[in-house]
């Protein structure tokens, strides 16, 4: 299990929700909000592990997706 801690000041909550939903086929994702941060606990699905995906890569890709969506939602994207 990998825990990702997204600070509210830097990440958009809707973007994180969207990212979590996008990656639900590949991982079990527990969500929590605590101390000014959105916390996602990512556990790789057996099917994704069987396909050769690494848990760290899936978690990092989820974080990238959340960041990209945050930037688009905040209007900073070029």
């Amino acid at each position: 299990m990998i825990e990702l801690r997204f600070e509210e000041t830097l990440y958009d909550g809707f973007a994180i929700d969207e990212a979590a939903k996008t990656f639900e086929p590949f991982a079990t994702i527990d969500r929590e909000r605590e101390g000014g941060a959105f916390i996602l606990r990512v556990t790789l699905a057996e099917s994704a592990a069987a396909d050769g995906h690494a848990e760290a890569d899936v978690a990092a890709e989820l974080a990238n997706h959340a960041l990209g969506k945050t930037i688009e939602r905040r209007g900073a994207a070029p």
Partner: protein
Amino acid sequence: MQGARLELVRELYPLDAVYLAAYTSLDRAWVFLESSPAGVVATVRSKRDGVSDDAAAGQLGNEALAQAYRLHLARGGRRVIEAIATRAVAGAAGPPGLDELLDMEIGEATAFDDPLGIAMSWEEKYGKKPAKKGEEEP
């Protein structure tokens, strides 16, 4: 997330510049942002074979610098852009038509305005000026 850590100081790198730089790096690296007392810490992990995490973090830093400078220039040039846009819009409206001229309010205060000197006689405008005190006529 493991990877190279890069601190981007708030005074030099506004958050928008960090976001823009991160956005352009998302296809080449995994980027995770955390706040720090001085600004933002980016943890960068390269996705490419042959490119180290440190090199990917360096590319992000370079891009952040370029974006910060671009934002600085955009802020500085905003007044010029606004002035040009205003003139363009005003010019596109064209000269006033007959209806606008008829609707113009001409009062005592504005009736005798003659900034181009059209109402002046030729002598007033181009005639020989009287000699100033202390100057002799040639």
